Every structure is written in C-alpha cells, then in structure tokens.
C-alpha cells in the first residue's frame, strides 16, 4: 500500500541553524501539506501546496519557513533560522486530485521530530 514517508525521523539542531525536512508524498497525489504538533498541543496546519505554489498558509508560516517540490517526488519544508519554539513533530500529508476538491482524504506521514537546542 502506498504511503507518505518522511526523513529524518528525528532531527536535532542548534538554534539559528537551517533545517530541511523531507517528505515523499504518494506518487500520484497532487496536493501537499505540512502540519506540526508542539508537544502536548494541537496538530496545527502550516501550509498547503498545489501546482508548484502555496495555496494556503497559516500565521505560523512566516518568512522563516519555505516549501519546495524540487523534483517529481520530494516535498520539503525549510526553516531558515530555527528557534527554540520550532521544536515540534512535523507531519507531511498528501491528497489526490479529484472533485469535490474540498474533500480529498489527506494521507499523513509518520512525522519528523525536530529538537532545537
């Protein structure tokens, strides 16, 4: 069964460093998402991406964050200068095309735990 994969499973970095979290969505999916969960808090939407551009982003997704689909398979989240408060579990998700667009099941990866020291 196809699944979303994420690497690494755990990333430790120093405050101020850049990190790139990687995701391989399901191969025929066209919509991609990043969510995060700070320990003990809600899973929060960060950004959605379709047709090589951001379709929606939350207030959390400021200029320190960027997303990219560098090739036909990877979807990345970059944090330019990490802060302590960026420590969280980051989930990637993808969904297929189709109508109605407002319902496409989102398939989630296992997450990357980011620890900023």
């Amino acid at each position, binding site marked *: 069964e196809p699944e979303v994969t994420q690497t690494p499973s755990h990333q430790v970095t120093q405050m101020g460093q850049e990190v790139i979290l990687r995701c391989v969505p399901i191969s025929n999916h066209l919509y991609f998402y990043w969510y995060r969960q700070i320990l003990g808090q809600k899973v929060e939407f960060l950004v959605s991406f379709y047709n090589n551009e951001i379709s929606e982003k939350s207030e959390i997704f400021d200029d320190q964050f960027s997303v990219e689909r560098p090739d036909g398979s990877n979807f990345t989240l970059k944090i330019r200068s990490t802060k302590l408060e960026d420590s969280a579990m980051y989930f990637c998700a993808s969904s297929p095309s189709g109508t109605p667009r407002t319902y*496409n099941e989102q398939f989630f990866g296992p997450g990357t735990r980011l620890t900023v020291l």
Partner: protein
Amino acid sequence: AQSVTQLDSQVPVFEEAPVELRCNYSSSVSVYLFWYVQYPNQGLQLLLKYLSGSTLVESINGFEAEFNKSQTSFHLRKPSVHISDTAEYFCAVKGDTDKLIFGTGTRLQVFP
C-alpha cells in the same frame, strides 16, 4: 473559523469495556468531520469521516461516531475495546478550505 475541543487528554479503560472519546467543534460554516488515529511511531491514519447523509458513521474495526449538529459534537465510541486499540485519537474538522483543524488528541490506553 473552526475549532475543535477534545476534553479528555487520556482515557484508561480495561479490555472489552466500552469507550467514548468526546469531540466538540465550533464553526460558522458547514464542516466535514474526521477521526484520525495514531499508533506508536506511525503517521495519522483516517479512522472515519462524516461528509453528509447518515449522521452515524462506522469504521471497519468497530468504531463509530455520530454527528450531532445541535450539540456540535462528533463523539467516537466502541462497544468493546481491544489492547490493539491503544493509540492517540485526533478529532478534526475541515471547513471551506483544504486545511484540517485538529483537536489536542486523546490517548486511549487499554489495559488487560
């Protein structure tokens, strides 16, 4: 804007006992409602969803949830739980955009 409240952060229960995990939401628009489950070291998996039609929806592994519009609730129930149901359960809503709005999750711990 939408929001989701899961009042119970942890629910301990013995095997074969019934369980209910509570979820309440608020929204100014019509919503789709979801329950996701996360087993240890795995991603979020869709357990069941309410889109329209019958207010009672069921999953293949015995869970069910009922959409109650007047109480703005979507509680998850199972009449008899198994050890293997031990996991984190997340309620989520989707309004008129693609993003999912999640609750804080409920950890279901099933004891033998």
